[in-house]
């Protein structure tokens, strides 16, 4: 024991404690003798505590906060999230959110979580950062989940040998050293259930101004915190002078919302919510279900400021990768020229109603396809393709229509659209759209079009411009219908105000093939064909 002498003399008894602790463990076969644990469990070995520096240990003790860390599992890979739970109300925020992607191995099909093995007799054991906590089997591979921090394993919530454990499930709790692990409280679990909640379309959040019945006074720090995390200031309890929401209130709100409802609840606050956020079941987490990502640990949400310390990787499917590559190539190599025009859909609507009485179901999109095809037939100089160094006239008119599928934007082709009747176009379009959504399109059904049409009208878009699909020359972007009052000078009684159903179409064309002048003429012809369907030879 001579080498311990100088330690005995030092003031700092912490080193002594842990060194002796360590040596005692070294003397015995760790675990096997002391506990009734199966010997040789090398896979779930909680190794002897790390020799932390005395300074660190002292610092931790002096902080005086109880930190309980909860260990969760995530999707496709295994997350370890450690969270601090304050058993006593302290104003100083002392939360520790650490996320680790424990496994990110190529080749995992993510076929689901199979087995969890945690050694059953390790409650109260010290765990060092990097120690193996448990084993998880999935997809024929056994993965070791490791602890990302030092501490004591307090409680195991999911039993060893469990199968089919879901994503984001809390499996164990850890406390930091020096804390009484027997007293750890199990955090509110109802918030932990992830995307099981049926995807609710995010309630369109009425602008805060509309729901604000009282004046909001935020301190700058509070405003920054609430903005960063996308929280509603209305939920914060103002404790500052004259109703000021202070930084502490904001932090408290942040902590509560993290505890009660892990996802930033910004958009889900349609009604002025009751002040205490932990009523998560009444306010569905708006974010995760629609994107299918787990709500805990907090993940970055598109459109919201990134929750600190997170990132999500969305692996690109093959389709998306190809789409990405082609779009980039198109936008960067083709000089896009844009031209827009408003078309009056009055005649089309009338015709459509008339056809409906005859039990023929056609949509506005079918009229547009037909009008475009006829216009191409009348102006063959627009029906071209870039052939490397100049225009190459095409002798067919095949219209590609853009269909949004879960896999990406696909463009099935309606062949020889100019010679097809409206009904035929309608039937073909419907069948192809369904096939696209099922992923059953054959290559000849989506390759080889001469002109593309993309219609976002049903999504409420008023107008937009699309990216050309090479090697085509143009793409027509169709917006939504809107009613407008316009002067109609053609009336015999003089100018009259009439309501017109208008749509805005934007033609993106390859400037090398279809320049602005040609595009304008084409659009004019298209508009005429659409506004006077009988002229275009439509039934």
């Amino acid at each position, binding site marked *: 024991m001579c080498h311990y002498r100088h330690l005995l003399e030092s003031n700092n008894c912490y080193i002594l404690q842990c060194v002796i602790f360590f040596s005692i463990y070294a003397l015995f076969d760790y675990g096997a003798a002391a506990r009734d644990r199966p010997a040789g469990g090398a896979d779930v070995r909680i190794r002897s505590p790390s020799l932390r520096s005395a300074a660190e240990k002292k610092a931790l003790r002096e902080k005086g906060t109880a930190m309980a860390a909860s260990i969760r599992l995530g999707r496709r890979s295994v997350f370890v999230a450690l969270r601090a739970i304050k058993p006593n109300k302290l104003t100083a925020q002392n939360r520790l959110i650490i996320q680790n992607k424990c496994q990110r191995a190529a080749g995992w099909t993510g076929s689901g979580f199979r087995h969890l093995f945690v050694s059953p007799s390790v409650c109260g054991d010290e765990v060092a950062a990097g120690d193996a906590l448990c084993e998880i*089997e999935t997809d*024929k591979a056994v993965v070791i989940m490791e602890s990302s921090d030092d501490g004591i394993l307090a409680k195991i919530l999911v039993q060893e040998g469990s199968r089919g454990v879901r994503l984001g499930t809390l499996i164990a709790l850890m406390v930091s050293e020096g804390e009484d692990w027997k007293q750890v409280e199990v955090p509110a679990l109802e918030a932990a259930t992830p995307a099981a909640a049926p995807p609710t379309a995010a309630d369109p959040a009425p602008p805060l101004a509309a729901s604000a019945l009282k004046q909001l006074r935020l301190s700058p720090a509070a405003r920054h915190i609430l903005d960063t995390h996308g929280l509603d200031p209305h939920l914060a309890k103002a404790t500052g002078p004259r109703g000021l929401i202070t930084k502490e209130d904001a932090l408290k709100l942040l902590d509560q919302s993290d505890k009660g409802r892990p996802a930033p609840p910004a958009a889900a606050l349609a009604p002025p919510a009751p002040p205490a956020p932990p009523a998560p079941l009444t306010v569905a987490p708006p974010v995760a279900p629609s994107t299918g990502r787990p709500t805990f640990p907090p993940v970055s949400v598109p459109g919201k400021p990134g929750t600190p310390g997170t990132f999500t990787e969305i692996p690109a499917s093959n389709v998306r990768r190809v789409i990405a590559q082609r779009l980039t190539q198109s936008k960067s190599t083709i000089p896009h020229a844009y031209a827009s025009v408003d078309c009056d859909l009055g005649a089309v609507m009338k015709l459509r109603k008339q056809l409906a009485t005859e039990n023929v179901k056609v949509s506005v999109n079918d009229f547009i396809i037909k009008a475009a095809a006829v216009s191409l037939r009348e102006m063959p100089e627009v029906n071209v393709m870039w052939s490397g160094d100049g225009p190459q006239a095409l002798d067919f008119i095949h219209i590609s229509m853009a269909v949004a599928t879960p896999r990406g934007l696909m463009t099935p082709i309606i062949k020889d659209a100019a010679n097809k009747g409206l009904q035929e176009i309608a039937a073909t379009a419907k069948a192809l759209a369904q096939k696209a959504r099922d992923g059953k399109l054959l290559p000849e059904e989506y390759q080889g079009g001469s002109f593309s049409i993309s219609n976002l009208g049903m999504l409420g878009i008023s107008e937009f411009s699309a990216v050309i699909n090479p090697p085509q020359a143009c793409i027509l972007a169709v917006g939504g219908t809107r009613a407008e009052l316009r002067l109609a000078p053609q009336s015999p009684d003089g100018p009259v105000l009439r309501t017109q159903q208008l749509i805005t179409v934007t033609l993106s064309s390859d400037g090398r093939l279809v320049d602005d002048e040609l595009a304008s003429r084409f659009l004019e012809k298209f508009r005429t064909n659409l506004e006077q369907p009988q002229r275009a030879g439509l039934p």
Partner: protein
Amino acid sequence: MMILRLSNRACVLSRSVRLKSTLSTFFDEVGKAGIILKSASTGIFENLALEDWIHDHVDLQNRSMLLLWRNSPVVVIGRHQNPWQECNLPLMRQLGIPLARRRSGGGTVFHDFGNINMTFFTSKKKYDRHRNLKVVTRALKALRPNLDVAATDRFDILLNGHYKISGTAAKLGRTSAYHHCTLLCSVNRSVLSTVLKSNISEVIKSNATPSVPSPVKNLLDVDPTLDSSTIMDAIASQYNNEFGFDGPVITVDPTHEALMPGIHKMAQDLQTWEWIYGRTPKFSVCTSLVVDDVTIKFDMDIKNGTVEQCAIEIPEGWLPPEMVNEFTSTLNGSKYCPNETAVLVAAFMRTRSMTEDVAEKIHRLCAAVVSVM
């Protein structure tokens, strides 16, 4: 004084070792990015321990390795499997085929000398099972271009699109990972099919990872000129081709403790009853057996390989009920193992006085219980 003879392709480590030198330092000295190892042992526990030792002790961040090994007949179950559900333990005891549990997941396989095992060690970043399987399929195709072998997305290799010739399992640790797979060259298929069919699978209710049974075929069946050593050489050279390595092929003796400190204990740990049987996820056995023209119902819950709870239902009057209660309480807490049960029952009978008739019945009851262990 480590005497190393590094010839062109093969290298054998002799038993004299430089002080403080281990296999991992040897690899560092060799310096190549990809090393192929062959195990000199055919003992399953030694080979599994070798895998684990390499996984734990060799730095795989800048190096990958392939280990080729074969075993004498043995049944190997996956990490979270239930041996009673996966294989016919009484038959294996009869045939002298041992049981081993590996540390990686997946299903149950039968090994013998006609089966080649390959373990691909990489860092976690380079973990790519499909690429590893391509090494195997391309090696086979290079040997026999007409061979129809292809890997599936479940990481099996199918022959002629239908017969499984290889299965995969993997283990991912902190910084490195290994992926191992089998390859059926000339395995004894009749033994394989009888041994991998459990005698009591219907009566077991368990959460363990189930195996997916598949029809199998030997490569030898489609081409009698293919034998294991040819195939192993082909795989070794294809491994070098695929990953651009030019490392040597080194034979390793997994019993060489000085070279791999701790490996002996690893092998011992893998042979303990607690690991092989005790690691079975909780399951229950519920069956009724006919003993002496009476039907007896057994209902046992087994956790960690020991009987947690045992209930036996016998028809009235066949045996005195207190005797049955004492019998079941003897079984409670004991290992779910025929030897242990026999020992306990023998002790049970020795410590109680009973008529010969009752003794005989207890004997047969015991035999019935043991038949499901």
